[in-house]
Structure formats: structure tokens, C-alpha cells
């Protein structure tokens, strides 16, 4: 695949537009340790935001909070104009139908085939025509480079293929907000590049807002417009990707140099 064409960076907040994601004073503790503490974050519609941070800095937790899988201890979260906090599970259904989530460990349903997994969101949203579903599934699988894999089972797929099935499932309903948790974890650089190209093409086609968490920092920086760096439970830095080479913050610098150099260590 070729590298994507340059894309104009999205503004942090488009004038007059309601934010796609808004966190206000969010705190979440586990066993007495505040993984996220007083986090404020606003993401404009259509933005591509990469979430960076050392291991256990709360990156995946942030995504889980956004789709209501975990409730914060303190603070408020609104997504696509709907409040997430303080709502019961059953009340989050409408919002969740507007989201697409790619989980770190794929979360493919092992009792369904590849086609069954990709078709699942459509079926559950009431699409009853099997021909329409089959056509949409075939189109999505072609887009992720898995044409002809409909009848295979998740257990028969490689890690990269599972990721791509996960992407196909997350995007088949053209959600307004996409949450990608480690879309390339454990993949080789070539497959990793292909996956990010795929995410890029998808986002260009739909204009969806994207929040992506990835330990593959160089590849992630090639995909997103701006980054949020989590450190010590807070948003330590936020800014456009283009400004990162000039970043002087020592903590961010150390993280980026460690990641870019492959040391993988953050202070």
C-alpha cells in the first residue's frame, strides 16, 4: 500500500460545533491508585487523536470510559453530545450504536465465523435482509483485504487478520466515533503499516472522529493529526503531531525518544 496523502490537521475544536468527546475532571482509581486523575479533554468532530503514554498510564481505560464500559469515580463524560456518566447500561444503547470499537485483544466472537462477526452489528441493529448483509460484509472484508474469508473461524486467523476482521466489524455501520485500542499490537511493521493505511482510508471516507491508542508510536503519528500524552494520570501534553519534533517538555521528550529509539521506556 502507498502512504496516505497529506491531510490537513483538524482544529482542536471547530467553531460552533459540539465536541465529539468531552471529559471534565475525570478520575478513576483501581485499588487506591488513581490511574486517571482530573482529566479534561475535548475532541472536535472529525479529529484524529492519538493517545500516547507509558504502559498502564490509562490509555485503554480512557477508551473504555468513553464507551461506558467503565464508569469514572468522579467527573463527567459526554460523547457525541450524549452524557455517558450517570446512565444505566440499558440507556447507553443508542450512543453505543454510534460508536465503533476495536479492542486490543480483538474481541472477535469465537462462536461466529468471520462473516458472522462482521455482520453482527448490522443484524443486531435490525437489518433483516440477508442479501444486504452479505453484500455489506463482502464489501467490508474486501476493504480490509480479507475477501473470501467469510466462512473461516476466528481461531483459524493470524493476529493481523483478526485485527482486520475487528476493524471490519467496528466500521461496518459507519460509526461517528471510532475508538481503536492498539490496532497494531503484536504485528510486524509491514502489516502494521497496512492497518494504519486502512484506518486512514476509512476515516477519509466517513469523516468519523477517531481516538487511537497505540504503542507503535511512529506508525500512530503517521495516522493522527494531534496527540494527547498521558502521564501521572493526567493529560500532560496535547498538540498537533507536526509540533512534536520541537517539543521541549522533558517527560514527553524522554517518552518519544525512548519509543522512537525502540527502547520503549517512558520515565
Amino acid at each position, binding site marked *: 500500500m502507498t502512504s496516505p496523502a497529506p491531510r490537513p490537521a483538524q482544529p482542536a475544536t471547530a467553531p460552533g460545533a459540539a465536541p465529539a468527546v468531552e471529559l471534565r475532571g475525570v478520575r478513576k482509581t483501581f485499588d487506591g491508585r488513581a490511574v486517571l486523575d482530573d482529566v479534561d479533554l475535548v475532541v472536535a468532530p472529525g479529529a484524529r487523536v492519538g493517545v500516547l503514554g507509558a504502559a498502564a498510564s490509562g490509555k485503554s481505560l480512557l477508551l*473504555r470510559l468513553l*464507551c461506558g*464500559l467503565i464508569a469514572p469515580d468522579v467527573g463527567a463524560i459526554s460523547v457525541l453530545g450524549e452524557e455517558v456518566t450517570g446512565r444505566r*447500561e*440499558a440507556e*447507553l*444503547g*443508542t450512543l*453505543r*450504536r454510534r*460508536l465503533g*470499537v476495536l*479492542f*486490543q*485483544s*480483538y*474481541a*472477535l*466472537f*469465537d*462462536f461466529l465465523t468471520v462473516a458472522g462477526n462482521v455482520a*453482527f*452489528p448490522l443484524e*443486531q441493529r435490525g437489518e433483516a435482509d440477508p442479501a444486504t448483509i452479505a453484500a455489506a460484509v463482502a464489501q467490508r472484508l474486501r476493504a480490509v483485504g480479507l475477501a473470501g474469508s467469510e466462512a473461516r473461524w476466528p481461531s483459524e486467523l493470524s493476529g493481523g487478520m483478526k485485527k482486520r476482521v475487528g476493524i471490519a466489524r467496528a466500521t461496518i455501520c459507519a460509526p461517528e466515533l471510532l475508538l481503536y485500542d492498539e490496532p497494531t499490537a503484536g504485528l510486524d511493521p509491514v502489516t502494521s503499516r497496512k492497518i494504519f493505511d486502512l484506518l486512514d482510508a476509512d476515516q477519509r471516507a466517513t469523516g468519523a472522529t477517531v481516538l487511537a491508542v497505540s504503542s507503535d508510536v511512529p506508525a500512530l503519528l503517521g495516522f493522527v493529526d494531534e496527540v494527547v500524552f498521558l502521564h501521572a494520570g493526567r493529560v500532560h501534553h496535547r498538540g498537533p503531531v507536526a509540533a512534536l519534533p520541537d517539543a521541549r517538555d522533558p517527560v514527553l521528550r524522554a517518552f518519544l525518544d525512548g519509543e522512537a529509539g525502540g527502547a520503549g521506556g517512558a520515565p
Partner: protein
Amino acid sequence: MTALLASLGRTALRLAREVGGLLGFGARVARALAPPRPDRRELVRSLYKMGNRSVTIVVLTALFAGGLMAIQSGSFVKKLGATGLAGWGAGYAVLREIGPILIALMFSGRVGANTTAELATMTLTEQLDGLRALAIDPLRYLIVPRVLAMVVMLVALTVLGDLVALLGAAAVAHVVMDIEWATMMTSFADNLAPADFFHGVGKSIAFAVAIALSSCYFGVSVRGGAPGVGRAVNASVVTSAVAIVLLDFFLTYLTS
């Protein structure tokens, strides 16, 4: 002494937490069952898997359990010359006690353990979160069909097991103790009442609910990776076995 008390306290707290969790889970399942609108595909899949997986082991167990009852009761009735009661002795024990309890224990070891392992694996691989993220309630989509399938299948297997056990009793009585087939069949018909059969079936419903709740609860509340799956399966099987014995005692006591 302090260490012993602390250990006892920890055990009591853990037990209270699990019992509370199990009861809360049961209440949520009961709410999801009213009205019961299980995913039909998931229900059929569960019914097929559970039934298919258990028939052989239930038939084998029931056949020999029936034979065993015939031997136990047969030696007495032969000694007393009351062969006409051989069928009653074996049949009464099979229909009211041995059939439901043995089949439930087998079902728990086979289907309950498998359900726990399956749900635990799904939990650890984020499949339950995947469902929630797609606005699907895992309780309604995964748990309710399994609970219903377990109840239907355990009752069906108990009925099948009862029949096989009675046949086994008649066969063993004929081969080992030379009691005529007709004598055994007449003894069954004359001495066993439909109430004996329904007593066992009623117990099997209670056992099925206990197995279903226990296996699903420990499956979805798993912690700690692959070793956690093993612990969850172990806890599920032990809890089911204890629940089966306790329920059997109280149901027998209350209906006797």
C-alpha cells in the same frame, strides 16, 4: 490463634461475597427472563451443544445406576421371596433420588464446567465487552439462552435417564438375579406412581437452575487470566455439587 481467626474471617468474607454475588446475579437473570426473549440462534446452539454433549454420558450413568439399584434391592427381595417388589425398590430410588441427582452431577461436570470455561474465556478475551460496546446486553444474549437451555436439557436428560435406568434395572435383575422382565415391568407399573416421576423431574428443574446460575456466574466473574479460568471452573463445579445436594435434601424434606 490470631492467624487462624484471620484465615477464618477471610474465608467467611470470601464466601459471603460469592454468595451475595451469586444471588445478585440470579436476580439480574430473573429480571432478564421476564419476559423471556432469548436470542433464538444462541438458544438453539446451546440446546444442541448441551444435549449432544451429555446424552452418551447420561445414558451410560443411568444404565448402570439402574442396574446398581436392582442389585441392591434385588438381594433383599430375593431373600424374602418378594420379587414382585424388586421393581418398586429400584424404580422408587431411581425416579425420586438417584436419577435426578446423578444426572445433575454428570450434567454439572460436563455442561456446567464447559459453560463456565467458555464464558470465562469470552470474558478474558473481551468478548463480553465487545457485545456491550455493540449495545448488546451479554446477560440477555449469552446468559439467558444458556440458563433456559440448561433447564430444558437437564429435564429432558433426566426423563431419558429415568427410562434408561429403569431398563437397566430390569436388565440387571433379569441377567444377575434371574427375575423375569415381565415381573419387573409389572412391579414398576403397580408400585410406582406418576408423583414419583414428577418428584424427580421437579428436582431436576431446581438442580438445573442451580447449575446454570453457578456456571454462568463464575464464568462472567472470572479474574486473573488462564489460571483464573481453572479456578472459575473449579468453583462452579464445587458450588453446583454442594447446591445439588443441599437442594435435594431440602426438597425431599419439604415434600416428604
